């Protein structure tokens, strides 16, 4: 008895395999499959060089900027001039799912004395690029979203209704094959068929990356690429299953085709756009002007708080790191007032800088909240869900901007802590000047311990004569001022999410997608069991 059962199971398995093989071979040589696959491959081959070139440009710019920042740090002669710029590393996987327009926040400057609204952060997020606004990006995910999904639908729409019309469904079922085995065979064949173009496109993309000389693809990236290809296959399988289900609902091939195509237009175009539309309508308004006004207000309040702190005296300025001036030479009045004043003003400035970051984070969080609202609406569209997951794996999701800004906030505090520790809470004159007591007097030709009145009179006399003959001495003096050592200075590291975090991020959605897939399959099975094959 057990042997008979085992034999029966094996025979059933063979039947499913035979059906799957038949469907696979039948469809792999059809016009629709060949045309669709070739179109996808050709498109991928054309767009990959452009995407890779764009990535290489971004990466080069990132490297140049990072090097320039290190160079500026080495030039710093006073701690006050240490206002590092931080940059977000572009992800090589962005060729698979490009950064969504409007979500770029890729650079920031840690400067507690921020003066102008047009700091680097604003620059990178405000674009005036019409092309980006009017022509959305074509990346590998786009090829899968639109073309492969259409192909999946075209393959699935006539698997049941088409065979019924030809009469072959009747013939197949008149043999000793159950309905469940038949439909299972079709599902397996569909999965196998769609695996081919998906794998071919990924191979083409990776080959294009390799040919272009992009070699810094580590273990993290390989795992992400594997996950992306798995997700892609899951997505196109879902579209295939939906097409198969529609085919089981219709008696005519033409009806299943039309119904399937309307569903496809609904899922691929309408729901993503309507979802975003509704989310921006129902969600909180997010305005960059409100943000700018709040930041300006913070600047005014900051100036009010530090207004009463008087610092000054005679000074000679020089150009330092990051284009900021510093006190090259100053008299004792400046030294004393600076050592008293900066411990009061700098913590205030640091606090307001953090508040500014908090304002920016708040607005970015509001935008992300809008995105989550849209995601709720997007659950009816596997296309949009798929795009979200691919963006997360590629590191080009909109929340990446939020994570970057959060890293910037944490880094800013590290920098402030370093400055505090290195300058004894800003009491050390090394914070604002490299000169020491008496250097100013020496520079203008007086003894080190000259009185203030003598210094004032000498400076007046120099001004009357003209300062041209001091220029050479001034230039020599600047060159001899040593740069700071900066031992233990924290470095910014924003490497994005780890693989584990990404998996955690996409896992709920993947599980829901798999569950939906199973639901659609079950419905297909149920419908096919009751399908009239005559």
């Amino acid at each position, binding site marked *: 008895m057990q042997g008979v059962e085992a034999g029966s199971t094996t025979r059933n398995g063979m039947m499913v395999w035979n059906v799957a093989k038949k469907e696979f071979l039948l469809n792999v040589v059809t016009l629709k499959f060949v045309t669709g696959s070739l179109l996808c491959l050709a498109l991928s081959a054309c767009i990959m060089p452009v995407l890779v070139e764009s990535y290489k440009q971004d990466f080069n710019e990132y490297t140049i900027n990072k090097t320039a920042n290190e160079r500026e740090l080495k030039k710093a002669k006073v701690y006050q001039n240490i206002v590092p710029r931080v940059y977000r590393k572009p992800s090589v996987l962005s060729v698979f799912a490009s950064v969504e327009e409007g979500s770029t926040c890729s650079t920031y400057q840690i400067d507690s004395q921020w003066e102008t609204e047009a700091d680097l952060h604003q620059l990178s997020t405000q674009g*005036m690029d*019409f*092309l*980006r606004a*009017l022509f959305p990006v074509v990346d590998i995910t786009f090829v899968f979203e639109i073309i492969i999904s259409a192909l999946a639908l075209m393959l699935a729409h006539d698997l049941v209704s088409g065979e019924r019309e030809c009469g072959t469904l009747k013939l197949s079922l008149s043999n000793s094959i159950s309905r469940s085995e038949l439909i299972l065979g079709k599902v397996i064949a569909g999965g196998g068929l769609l695996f081919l173009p998906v794998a071919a496109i990924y191979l083409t993309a990776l080959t294009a990356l390799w040919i272009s000389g992009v070699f810094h693809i580590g273990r993290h990236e390989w795992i992400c690429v594997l996950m992306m290809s798995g997700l892609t296959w899951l997505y196109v399988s879902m579209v295939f299953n939906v097409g198969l289900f529609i085919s089981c609902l219709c008696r005519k091939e033409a009806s299943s085709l039309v119904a399937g195509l309307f569903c496809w237009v609904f899922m691929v175009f309408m729901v993503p756009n309507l979802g975003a539309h509704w989310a921006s309508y129902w969600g909180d308004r997010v*305005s960059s002007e409100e943000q700018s006004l709040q930041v300006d207000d913070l600047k005014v309040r900051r100036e009010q708080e530090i207004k009463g702190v008087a610092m000054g005296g005679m000074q000679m300025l020089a150009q330092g790191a990051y284009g900021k001036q510093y006190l090259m030479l100053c008299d004792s009045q400046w030294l004393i007032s600076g050592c008293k004043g900066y411990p009061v003003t700098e913590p205030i400035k640091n606090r307001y800088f953090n508040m500014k970051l908090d304002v920016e984070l708040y*607005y970015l969080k509001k935008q992300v909240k809008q995105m989550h609202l849209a995601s709720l609406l997007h659950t009816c569209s596997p296309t949009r869900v798929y795009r979200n997951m691919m963006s997360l794996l590629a590191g080009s999701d909109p929340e990446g901007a939020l994570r970057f800004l959060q890293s910037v906030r944490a880094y800013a505090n590290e920098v402030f802590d370093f400055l505090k520790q290195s300058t004894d809470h800003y009491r050390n004159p090394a914070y604002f000047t490299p000169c020491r007591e008496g250097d100013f007097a020496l520079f203008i030709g007086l003894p080190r311990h000259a009185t203030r009145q003598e210094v004032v009179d000498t400076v007046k006399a120099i001004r009357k004569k003209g300062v041209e003959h001091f220029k050479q001495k001034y230039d020599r003096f600047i060159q001899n001022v040593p740069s700071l050592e900066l031992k233990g200075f924290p470095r910014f590291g924003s490497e994005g999410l780890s693989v584990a975090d990404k998996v955690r991020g996409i896992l709920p959605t993947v599980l829901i997608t798999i569950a939906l897939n199973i639901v659609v399959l079950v419905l297909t099975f149920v419908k096919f069991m009751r399908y009239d094959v005559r």
Partner: protein
Amino acid sequence: MIRYIAQKEILETMLSLRFGLAVILSVLLFSVSSLVFITDYQRQTNEYREQMNHSRKEMLDRSDHLYELALYKQTVYRKPKPLSFCSTGATRAIPNAYRFNIFSREIPEKKSRPDTILMKAYEVDWVFIISVVMSFVALTFTFDRICGEKEKGVLRLIMSGPIPRYTVILGKYCGAMVAVSVPIGVGVLTSLIIVSGAKSVHFTSEDWQKISILFFMMLLYGSIFIHLGLLISARMVRSDSSMVVLLFLWVGLVILVPYLGRTVAEIVRPIPTRAMVLKKQAAIDTLTLDNAIAGKYGPNAASWGPSLSQGKYNPAARRRYFNDGNEKRNQLLDDYITQMRGQFNFACQFSRLSPTGAFRQACARLVGSGAVHFTDMYYQVRNYQDRLRKRIQEVDAKDPDSLHLLYEDRDTAYHWKTMSHKPIALEHIPIFREQSLAVGKALGHAIYDIGLLCVLNIVLFCGVFIAFVRCDLR
């Protein structure tokens, strides 16, 4: 005979599932887009009014001293368009604020726009609905008009009667055209009822004319896809093969070619980023300062003090120094705008390979939205800037206490009186008024794209005619 065939086609289509789906889809999409537009437009109009009033008030506050008015950086905003529900032209993403004074202009920015990081491939406006959804609907109505009837044997029966082939194909075309016009017409009517019923939206007679022309363009565009559907249907033997080919053609024409316009334009016409332009502007400042110190504009151009009586300063040289910097910066910005325009135009030219690209361009130009409007507004601002500068120069010339040296330096304007300190009456100050294109001119801009759509229609109709005349009906 054409009438009978058309009637038969219309009835057949209207009684099918696809027609019902198309009408429901059309009504849903047009309603949603109109409802969202009304709220958005109301908010934009209120904001625009507030912004312009604020700007006017700021100018009034500064009219007590001519130099304050000259130095004041006012911001003008693009007026929200009542027809933007027809074609938004990605208005949300394009800068709407132009800040300038009589000496210099800044890079235009987006202000008071609800910023969003939500990805929207397109705004759901009329152009999107017609170019993406209705074109697809037109294909579903026609993909099996000929090959489907051939498969069933109906076509053979029809042609066995004394009906010339051109009558049949004309009848089919007219029937399909009427069938497609119904969901489009219902959708447009729904949208117009919703929008015109809103208190905040007022259409002028010019707007109604533009809407009529838009409707005609929609039918022209839909007609292209009807011809395409009939052509492929005539060439194919089976209806599912016809649908496959049409679907891929549709993806190529409606999605790929327009999208690829950007990629191609970025390769062929690269432009600097905004950050690079700002860096160049900063470099210009440094260069002009170095030149001033070196004495290129005259001695002591870079220095100033509160009193001219010391005889150490040179206002004329200082004016040359400042004006040179401003001219270079303005030129840089103009070049940037020109390059951007060139890149954008190239992308549009490329996208015209597809009727969708031509249709979108025609709609944007007719309605006055999108990038074309942005650059047009930029040039209007530039002209206004010249007019305002001339006016201020005229008023300044009448003041004997002024040195009549107009340049962008507040300190010297105040201390040295390089410009007049006398007040100016507000009615003498020219106000910026955005000029919308008249219907005739807008049509003139769009005529190339409309012509392209007409030519495509004619070419495709000839193709359909020839294909059907030579079609094997067995």
